[in-house]
């Protein structure tokens, strides 16, 4: 791989393809580690984020272990002021955004904050916040006795809106409800905003919270699946800019997003076959990226041990890239994190690059498959982090 790797200094790299996005910093919040540097170390050491979650909530949970953070409190990271009413999804998303901004060499000032925004992916916002609100209307003798201060937590764009307020970012602010496709959908949305010239930089990622609700929803649907990954929570957020502009400023990205393609096919077992759809999607993404299948070093999959979904992903990848391509399975480290999963898969790839200069210029693919027939693929090219002006 080293011999053929394209580095920032090789001539072939100078001509950055049009519409390519650069990732210039990232933040991650998981039970495995918090922050890009810690996350890189933890993955390098092969650690697992599986935790004992007994007693994490008043309600009984279906399983004793999850990839969750029983001791996580947002105030430990961002202070007590202004954080006391945040729901967990908002806390995870905001901390991801904050860490990503800390990790980049992009500077946000009054001169550019109108051109810097946020695109966050979700499944359904804080399901716990909505359900708790619902519960209050059902249990009280007066159904309207809900807490108005908590009302904003019930809307799905709460995390993105609160993050914009916290960080003072007045540009595009979008929330993409993508479920397992959320990470790739958010990237695709961001790519559109940047190539159309609506924004200069975006914090792009996705978040998912662990709660009794998500634990039981998953358990009631999938408990019969042996080998299923335990559920988790987390967020990953990337600072995304126009790659050409970043290069022109003499800055070095952590990675470039060369393409993101998505499609909609039948649910597992139905037509049109989503496995063939994913193969088509990967093929389209590679063509857009001008990369040959043989140049792909690794595929970061969403595989979570749910056979009917993993089968679609396996068939799609084997058909597009062959059976030999190396798999990076983020669920082994961070669990099944639903809408956060696609972003965490990308973070796992970036962690590999951050610590390994010999991988510079290597190309990877990220794949996502949803139970509703949605499929997606992104193509990334990564570099190690050598610049001294950055943490991590």
């Amino acid at each position, binding site marked *: 791989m080293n011999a053929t790797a394209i580095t920032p200094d090789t001539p072939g790299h100078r001509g950055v393809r049009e519409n390519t996005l650069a990732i210039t910093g990232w933040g991650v919040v998981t039970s495995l580690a918090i922050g890009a540097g810690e996350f890189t170390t933890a993955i390098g050491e092969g650690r697992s984020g599986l935790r004992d979650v007994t007693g994490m909530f008043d*309600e*009984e949970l279906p399983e004793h272990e999850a990839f969750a953070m029983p001791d996580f409190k947002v105030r430990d990271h961002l202070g007590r002021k202004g954080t006391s009413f945040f729901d967990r999804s908002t806390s995870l998303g905001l901390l991801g955004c904050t860490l990503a901004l800390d990790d980049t060499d992009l500077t946000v000032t009054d001169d550019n904050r*109108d051109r810097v925004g*946020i695109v966050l992916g*979700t499944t*359904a*916002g804080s399901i716990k916040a*909505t*359900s708790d*609100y*619902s*519960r*209050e*209307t059902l*249990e009280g003798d*007066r*159904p*309207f*006795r*809900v807490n*108005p201060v908590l*009302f*904003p937590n019930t*809307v*799905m*764009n*709460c995390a*993105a*809106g609160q993050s*914009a*307020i916290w960080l*003072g970012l*007045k*540009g*595009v*602010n*979008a*929330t*993409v*409800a*993508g*479920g397992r*496709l959320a990470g790739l*959908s958010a990237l695709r*949305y961001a790519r*559109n905003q940047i190539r*159309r010239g*609506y924004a200069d930089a975006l914090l792009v990622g996705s978040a998912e919270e662990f709660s009794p609700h998500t634990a*039981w*929803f998953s358990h*009631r*649907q999938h408990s019969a699946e042996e080998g299923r990954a335990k559920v988790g929570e987390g967020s990953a957020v990337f600072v995304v800019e126009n790659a050409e502009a970043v290069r022109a400023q003499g800055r070095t990205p952590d990675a470039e997003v060369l393409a993101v393609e*998505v*499609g*909609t096919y*039948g649910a597992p077992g139905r037509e049109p076959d989503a496995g063939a759809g994913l193969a088509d999607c990967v093929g389209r993404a590679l063509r857009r990226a001008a990369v040959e299948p043989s140049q792909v070093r690794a595929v970061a999959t969403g595989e979570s041990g749910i056979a009917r979904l993993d089968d679609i992903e396996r068939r799609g990848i084997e058909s597009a890239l062959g059976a030999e391509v190396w798999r990076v399975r983020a669920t082994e480290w961070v669990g099944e994190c639903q809408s956060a999963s696609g972003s965490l898969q990308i973070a796992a790839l970036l962690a590999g690059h951050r610590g390994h200069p010999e991988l510079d210029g290597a190309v990877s693919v990220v794949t996502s498959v*949803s139970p*509703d*027939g*949605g499929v997606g693929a992104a193509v990334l090219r990564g570099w190690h982090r050598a610049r001294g002006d950055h943490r991590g």
Partner: protein
Amino acid sequence: MNRRVVITGLGPVSSIGTGVTAFGQALRAGTSGISAISSFDSSGFPHYMAGEVPDFDPKALLRTLSTSEWGRTSLFAAAAARLAVEDAGIDEKALAGASAGSSIGTTSGESQVIEALTAEWVHSGLDQITPAYAAQVPASRLAAAVNQELGLTGEAVTLSTACSASNYALGYAYDQIVTGDADYMIAGGADSVCRWAHAGFYRLGALTEKVCSPFDKDRSGILTGEGGAALFLESLESATERGAHIYAEVLGYGLNCDANHMVAPDPVSIAECMRRAHHNAGIAPADIDYICAHGTGTPANDAMEAQAVVEVFGTRPPPISSIKSMLGHTMGAASGFGAIASALAIDEGFLPPTTNYRTPDPELPAIDPVPNESRPAQPKVVQNNGFAFGGNNAITILGRVA
């Protein structure tokens, strides 16, 4: 590629009418879609009116989806999309074989499903919830339902940027066709009335008792509403080639964020959003003939919107009316219905009224709300406002094809 984008199909599923003919007639007549809540038990609530669609019959509208597998909001989205495609008169097989997808906006997604699961939890325990309901929770199913119903294999993206989400969706669909990433897109939004939102708006003091009267001196708040709104988009070249009826052209849009307060809108930021939309559409404020207002009917929102309009348009702004006076606040579908109303205004030559208007507000002297009766007019360029919790502003600009 830099293609012009036009709207050739409209699919409203609303409390004032389903299908473009019924909806258009009701809009012109100033019909009220407000009724006593029937989708949940409203006993115990001081206020019990909403803009529900009590006669919504997904089985009669949908041909592909099995209605038992999907939540109410997904069915609203798919039914609206089906109507928009039928209205566009495009061959369904050709559409399914083309590069086509959907972008659907929403505030609450399938939160009626979350309410049903919560009720199961309260009555029987979390270990007894119905697995099939749990599978219906992801809001991504709204756009997925649209693609599945119509057999589209392209992108299905659900944008959940609250009450401006349909304008986000319309803007995204527009870009996909401009750039050639897609040839056909269905854009719109959907939401369902639900108990927790009714309770929340009541406790915020934002809910009026029986009548929503935007821009009126005595306006006292919103009524929640529901439905599905869909628009069929294609390139001008494609529409012309197949001899389609063109309602309007999508000229552009603008997005920004107040980054200031979760629920209190910021007029300075909203004025900036209007300028972004105008710039993107390549027009000046003087070109706008009509503004389809966000117009929720709360004292604060209407005053803020009027203030932003005056800042951008001066003391003689174009007529600005709120169809929420008829529909209630359909949340994530609201700016989708606004876009449909705007397209009809351009195509049929009228301005939709603000109904329930009694007393002019001396604090809003510049505002012409098209009171109570629709007005014959020939608007060439229309601005459709959408603002949301989170300070998420989105404005689309539609124009007559010249």
